[in-house]
């Protein structure tokens, strides 16, 4: 269990750093979505199915959609 936790944590932190450091905004949003999805896994490991479902629907789904829609509105990636 410990090993899985560490792996998941490492994955999340990597995704977080990637989301911050990457040049393209779209990549950043996708990385954020990945981070949320992985955190869903962590929530299930910690026996929180309610939170997991909500995070999957809101954190990984809707948040990414909102960010990408906003990015589209300003005319896509520029950097």
């Amino acid at each position, binding site marked *: 269990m410990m090993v899985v936790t560490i792996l998941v944590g490492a994955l999340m932190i990597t995704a977080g750093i990637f989301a911050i450091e990457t040049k393209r905004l779209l990549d950043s949003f996708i990385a954020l979505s990945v981070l949320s999805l992985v955190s869903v896994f962590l929530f299930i490991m910690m026996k*929180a*199915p*309610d939170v*997991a*479902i*909500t995070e*999957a*629907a*809101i954190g990984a*789904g*809707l948040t990414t*959609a*909102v960010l990408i*829609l*906003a990015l589209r*509105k300003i005319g896509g990636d520029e950097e």
Partner: protein
Amino acid sequence: MRKFLSMLLALGVVFVLIEMIEPIPAYGKVDLSKRVSEKYVSKSVSGFREEVAYKKSKNLEEGSANVVTSIVVNYRGFDTLGEVTVLFISAFGVGLISSGLKRKGYGRKPNFILRTAVGVVLPLIILFGVYIFVHGHLTPGGGFPGGTILSIGILLLYLSNEEYELSEKSKVLEGTSGSLFVIIGLLGIAFSGAFLANFLPTGVIGNLFSAGIVPIIYIVIGFKVGAELSTIVADLHKEG
């Protein structure tokens, strides 16, 4: 240089936070008997004490099988009213800030597969969303993910149909369901003497028709969250 400094500051914050969590119990070794949640689980806040058993216990003080739901909607239902208000006001703000704009298409025709699949998938999505919030007091889920799933259905409509626009009725749904939540709370004052108090029989734990006002509130929340997030999605499709 800026990166180095911010890294230093972030490390400082991390260090302080690690110092702060020093005195709290180790991960997974928590003693729940000292916390209020123990009484939420055994459903004995008002003093009544009896072992709760699935599909057997009757007329408990609070009848939802999902303990998280019982806290979110019943024991701490007021928080949820506030939370719905946060979402309400931010949806309103999104609408206000992007006001005066009209929907603009994606500039290319939606994919054939997408257009055809929507007809099949959309009813399923809506059904799933409704299922999630109707069963919120029995299974994981509830009004918030259920409402989100409804709004994702709306997002799919937007993606697949260039002309689609959310009708103004969503605002009415939003306002009405919000008012209903408050009115249910006020009925609580009328019948049980406290805001948001339960005034319906709680039934047998685990049955669909149980838990008093909890399923009703969760359905109201589901529709409200669905309407709010859908307006956010719709507003994000508008362009000047």
